């Protein structure tokens, strides 16, 4: 009798287990672990990739890099110093607490508190004065100076649950946002586990579980993809791409959102002469270098501003060594002039190889160019303190609004010593212009001016190279982020 009962129970249990499909799971391998689970203190892309699944901003860029509403439904600038946001109703945090204007105010005030030490971008970008709660679902952000790009700045401000983040200390052992995934666990340097949020306001995501693992070594990430232990890997070295074209795995490439360039020190000879800056742009066969070291995956550019805001007619400088030589002769640059090109090692895709190739092309038009390879912290210090030699290789990324990219050209950001009055006054005007049409025209004018003035030797937009299992249905983005709530995985 008992045996029969036990057998029946076992069968019943098996039937229940059989009828429930196993949860779907995707494992993502990044190069580094997250530094925190608390958005107020986050700074690296690896961390943002994880946090965006658990927390949400007021607005976010879509695949075409246009801002789309998330927790905010709409926004407008009320006056030069005030932005007003209408918020989404009926959204709850994972703890059950409601999302409302108070939560937005709380999030910004915690981030800007003098008792909080954070390197969060928004803290340095937004000149915050105060936040006003108009009603439960309307909030106003008042700034000290006009902040035209406020919506763009706010896309990195992930809204916190005031019932969980009451202290100024980082909260890392739990998390409560409004996002499509909830936090399950974080084992340092081993990985972060997330679970699908069945109650997500925009519908539960297709993949039930996500594990973000840090695997620092490139070849190990590739190996883990090939063994099937991992479904998505970042930063695949271009040479390894053919290896991951298998029956079970594939490579994914997205056009980059990072302008890789060689900064020309316009505050010293010979690059204080615009003809010399143009000459080096004509002297280098970018396409050949791109083909040889990046497998052709880099995207050449002449326009620093990313699409869709760029001046469309601006094409990359063509390879024309004769014209380069003529310009150098005209500028009176002596043959065999020694110049040094400094580059970090491994900060950007194939940075050292790129610098060496560029130097070789410069030598063909009469320079005596040397490459100096520096460890990133040493390079960074020289660069920030303007102690670089005549040329340095760098990559800047993260902006897709036009103004952000133009900031990179300015001496205060890229430290090239290039200060052009026309550009500076145009930029100041742009920074205080709210009218969208006027802004678009201004951005294109400045984009053209920068091309003519050539404060950089423009190289390419760094591609993002991924490896993915064929089970995973996901498309890479231009801004290097990995968002998986729209992705799915085949069983």
């Amino acid at each position, binding site marked *: 009798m008992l045996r029969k009962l036990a057998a029946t129970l076992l069968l019943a249990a098996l039937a229940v287990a059989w009828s429930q499909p196993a949860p779907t799971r995707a494992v993502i391998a990044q190069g*580094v672990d997250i*530094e*925190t689970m608390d958005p107020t*203190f986050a*700074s690296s892309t690896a961390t943002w990739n994880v946090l965006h699944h658990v927390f949400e901003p007021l607005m976010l860029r879509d695949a075409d890099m246009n801002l789309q509403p998330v927790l905010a439904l709409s926004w407008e600038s009320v006056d030069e110093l005030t932005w007003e946001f209408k918020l989404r109703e009926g959204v709850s945090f994972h703890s059950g607490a409601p999302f409302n204007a108070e939560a937005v105010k709380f999030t910004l005030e915690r981030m800007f508190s003098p008792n909080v*030490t*954070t*390197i969060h971008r928004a803290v*340095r970008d937004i000149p915050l004065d105060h936040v006003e709660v108009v009603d439960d679902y309307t909030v106003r952000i008042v700034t000290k100076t006009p902040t035209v790009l406020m919506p763009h700045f706010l896309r990195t401000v992930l809204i916190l649950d005031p019932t969980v983040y009451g202290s100024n200390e*980082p909260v*890392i052992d739990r998390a409560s946002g409004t996002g499509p995934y909830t936090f399950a666990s974080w*084992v*340092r*340097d*081993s*990985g972060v586990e997330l679970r699908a949020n069945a109650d997500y306001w925009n519908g539960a995501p297709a993949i039930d579980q996500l594990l973000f*693992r*840090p*695997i*620092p*070594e490139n*070849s*190990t990430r590739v*190996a*883990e993809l*090939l*063994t099937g*232990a991992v479904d998505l890997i970042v930063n695949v070295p271009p040479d390894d791409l053919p290896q991951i074209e298998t029956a079970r795995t594939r490579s994914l490439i997205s056009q980059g959102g990072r302008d890789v360039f060689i900064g020309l020190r316009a505050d010293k000879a010979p690059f204080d002469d615009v003809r010399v800056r143009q000459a080096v742009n004509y002297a280098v066969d970018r396409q050949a270098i791109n083909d040889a070291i990046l497998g052709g995956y880099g995207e050449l550019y002449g326009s620093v501003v990313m699409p869709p805001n760029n001046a469309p007619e601006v094409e990359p400088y063509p390879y024309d060594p004769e014209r380069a030589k003529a310009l150098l002769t005209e500028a009176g640059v002596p043959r065999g002039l020694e110049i040094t090109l400094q580059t970090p090692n491994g900060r950007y895709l194939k940075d050292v190889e790129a610098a060496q190739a560029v130097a070789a092309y410069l030598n063909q038009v009469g320079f005596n160019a040397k490459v100096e390879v520096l460890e*990133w*912290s*040493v390079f*960074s*210090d020289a*660069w*920030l*303190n303007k102690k670089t030699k005549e040329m340095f290789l*760098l*990559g*800047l*990324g*993260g902006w897709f609004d036009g103004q952000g990219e133009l*900031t*990179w050209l300015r001496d*205060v*950001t890229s*430290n090239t010593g290039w200060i052009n009055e026309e550009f500076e006054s145009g930029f100041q005007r742009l920074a205080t212009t709210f009218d969208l049409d006027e802004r678009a025209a201004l951005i294109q004018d400045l984009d053209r001016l920068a091309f003519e003035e050539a404060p950089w030797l423009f190289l390419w937009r760094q591609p993002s190279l991924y490896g993915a299992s064929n089970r995973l249905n996901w498309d890479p983005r231009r801004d290097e982020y990995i968002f998986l709530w729209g992705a799915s995985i085949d069983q």
Partner: protein
Amino acid sequence: MLRMLVSRLGQGVIVVVLVTLFVFLTTFLTGDPAGLMLGEGATQEQIQAFRQRMGFDRPLVTQYGSFLVRAVRGDLGVSLYFQQSNMQLFAERLPATLQLAFLSLALGTALAIPAGLIAGARRNTWIDSLVTNAALVGQAAPVFWVGSLAIMVFAVMLGWLPASGRGTPAHLVLPTLTLALFPLAYNTRLIRSSTLEVLGQDYVRTARAKGLPYYVVLFKHVLRNAIGPALTVIGIQLGTFVGGSVITETVFAWPGVGRLAIQAILTKDFPLLQTIVAFLAVGFVLVNVLVDVAYSLVDPRVRY
């Protein structure tokens, strides 16, 4: 003995202070962390403001002094990058490192002792040249290469073992074998040469002359005397391994102290780096004291 311990520990304190000072100065020689932390795209004004807020603009002596004062009170501060307690960050990663260090050193040594002893005892035979050459190759092979090769063969091609990470006993196999290779090779050669030295001693001849079986002579008389020099080296190896085997930990994505240290160096997170270095220096000093104690246990002639 007690006097030796007290004096060694006293020296240890001085070592730790000097090491942290050295690390502090070298970290700051290449500039402060403000620019690195804010990354590309921050303006000079923003960096300057951050520098002031974090106190990086204070004189180096003041900065180091305040670190030291707090450290003595048991407060090792907060990591600049993680914004978490340095102690906690270090403690979270120590078990993984210790596990790997002890296992691989134990494995390497356990195999090195018989290998070295046999090679020494069978000098100039095929077995000796096999062991010596294998040891030479093992010592010369870069850990990075061995690790990557092991992953390709055992994880990707054969699918027997996981390629990286920590969790199950299977995860331990590849990193332990990779890390064990160096102490195995090095200690084998060391024990072989000290075996040769001991074999030529009078007391070995006496032992054999009085009719003791060869294996008794080898394992009782020779081994005990040959292992002395190896002890010092094993102690140093343990000290080094406890510091995190940076390359092995990186190749196998092992969540240990070595990776944390690398990250602290790359981000110039000096409070974290100081903490790691201080603990490792303490560990190194303690291991050395233990080696001295062990010495007196194996060799009765050594007395403190």
